[in-house]
């Protein structure tokens, strides 16, 4: 797959269709690839990588890249196309400046899950019959493949590309996922249990801002948390700001716009399940205002900029779940 | 004027006599009107003035049937029957311990007596 992608990218660079390519670049180790922009065939040959660890969503980078001169080639996995579509809808990317090649999605692997098994010095890995064979500095280790799948791919919602100029490989379908199971489980806890759960999780936050910086819905010119005039400016971790304000406000800001790409939880160094906050909003929206998938199309109105005269009252909160 | 007596009547009746607008509908509706020396509206007015002893001495307190027509019809929610009853109660209390007791009741009963009358009578004489 990686070779096919590099070959096609080189062709498009050569015939002048695009002047740059955005994809993933090898890191220091076999598992720490990062999004990167390539301008020449040499760079592609040397650094371009596409494997089980290239989980990151490159859509957000196109906010800046699509505003530069010339066209850019973007390799988008199915989940990334949702983010991209949403950005088009919000006029944040310039569609004409991006040539999209849809590529197959995950499941991608989470290196932290491998490390958690005590496997270190990772050099390479191979998937054989659902078993992951990992070559390390200290010899070969094995683990079950599914145990290493990253969180966002476990609850994959769709294998379908909602936007592309061409596809490499087959297009898939929207999946029946069980992504709301954990939200539901929390809903059925008592308020005290939920409070304890979230207090424990959110108090781990170190305000590294990785969730915000990676989020394809967080593309504000200036984030409210960085803006002294917003009244809620807060740049460093403080007593209870993270628990009480930061994550709630962030989730609310992306409510109705979040495509559930799962990047926030993937990048969180403290393993806070931030995606559950977004999913709670998505679940509520689906249940109260009708099914809505942000980024699935370019025309539908976001549920929070829309209304129905027969909408439920907030007192519905009292009628659902457990207090 | 006996202030304590007035307060006692007001408290035991729970009636705010100041709400009366002197329309007289209570007396207009009263079936015992002709039997009574003082009429329902006068009860309300005299209690307001504090002239309770006069009422206590009058037979009128026993002539009230406690039918509650005045309570039902009063446009101001004054409840004159409760005032009458409170005055009666004040009189009964002063008389001492000559209350009617439940064991005395059966022999006084008449088969044709409506149940409501028994209850009313008991409410009236047993305090």
């Amino acid at each position, binding site marked *: 797959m990686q070779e096919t992608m590099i070959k096609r990218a080189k062709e498009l660079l050569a015939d002048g269709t695009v002047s740059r390519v955005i994809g993933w670049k090898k890191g220091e180790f076999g598992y720490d690839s990062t999004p990167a922009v390539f301008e020449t065939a040499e760079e592609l040959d040397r650094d371009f990588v596409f494997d089980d660890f290239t989980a990151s969503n490159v859509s957000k980078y196109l906010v800046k890249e699509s505003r530069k001169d010339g066209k850019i080639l973007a390799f988008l996995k199915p989940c990334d196309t949702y983010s991209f579509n949403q950005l088009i809808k919000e006029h944040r990317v310039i569609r004409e400046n991006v040539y999209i090649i849809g590529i197959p999605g995950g499941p991608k692997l989470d290196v932290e899950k491998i490390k958690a098994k005590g496997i270190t010095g990772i050099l390479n890995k191979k998937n054989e019959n659902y078993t992951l064979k990992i070559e390390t500095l200290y010899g070969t280790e094995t683990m079950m493949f599914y145990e290493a799948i990253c969180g966002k791919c476990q609850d994959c919602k769709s294998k379908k590309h909602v936007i592309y100029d061409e596809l490499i490989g087959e297009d898939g379908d929207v999946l029946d996922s069980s992504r709301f199971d954990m*939200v539901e489980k929390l809903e059925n806890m008592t*308020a005290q*249990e939920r*409070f304890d759960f979230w207090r424990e999780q959110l108090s781990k936050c170190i305000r590294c801002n990785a969730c915000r910086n990676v989020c394809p819905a967080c593309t504000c010119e200036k984030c409210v948390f960085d803006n002294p005039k917003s009244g809620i400016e807060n740049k460093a971790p403080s007593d209870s*700001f993270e628990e009480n304000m930061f994550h709630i406000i962030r989730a609310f800001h992306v409510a109705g716009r979040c495509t559930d790409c799962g990047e926030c939880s993937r990048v969180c160094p403290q393993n806070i399940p931030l995606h559950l*906050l977004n999913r709670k909003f998505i679940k*509520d929206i689906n249940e109260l205002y009708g099914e809505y998938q942000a980024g699935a199309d370019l025309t539908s109105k976001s549920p*929070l900029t829309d209304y129905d005269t027969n909408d439920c009252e907030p007192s*519905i909160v009292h009628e659902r779940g457990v*207090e | 004027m006996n202030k304590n007596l007035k307060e006692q009547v007001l408290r035991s009746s729970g009636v705010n006599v100041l709400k009366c607008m002197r329309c007289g509908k209570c007396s207009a509706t009263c079936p015992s009107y002709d039997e009574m020396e003082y009429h329902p509206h006068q009860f309300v007015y005299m209690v307001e003035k504090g002239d309770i002893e006069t009422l206590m001495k009058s037979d009128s307190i026993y002539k009230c049937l406690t039918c509650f027509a005045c309570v039902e019809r009063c446009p101001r929610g004054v409840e004159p029957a409760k005032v009458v009853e409170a005055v009666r109660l004040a009189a009964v209390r002063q008389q001492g311990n000559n209350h009617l007791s439940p064991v005395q009741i059966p022999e006084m009963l008449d088969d044709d007596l409506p149940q409501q009358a028994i209850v009313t009578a008991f409410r009236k004489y047993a305090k």
Partner: protein
Amino acid sequence: MQVNNNFEPVIVAFCCNWCSYAGADLSGTNRLNYPTNVKIIRVPCSCRVNPMFILRAFQKGADGVIICGCHPGDCHYTSGNYFTRRRITLLYSMLDFLGIERNRTRLEWVSAAEGAKFAATMQQFTEDVKKLGPNRRLEDLRCRKQ
């Protein structure tokens, strides 16, 4: 749970200028009593109430937040309260999800003619919040009153 009888909650009420604020004025004009705990902030429309304000109030030590607007369909600005209803429903649902007591938040439609409803609503809401006791779950410790 320990019930502190002397607990006087801080209650922030956001009232839209056209209906609910006028309704609050009307309950004053009609001398309808409601607890002093309730302090009203005037906003042009209930849709002006940013969820940020609500979280901010809780963080600064409010024990209850109530939002009042025109009845759905009667918004002075035609549609403002419909947006309010969605936003506030989602926010309240999220606060519930985070384990915040449901009775600390409320949205009520009060028209300019409903002075009695305004007073009764505030009375009830204050009682509900009193029963819950002080807001500890959403408060910023630095803002706690001594």
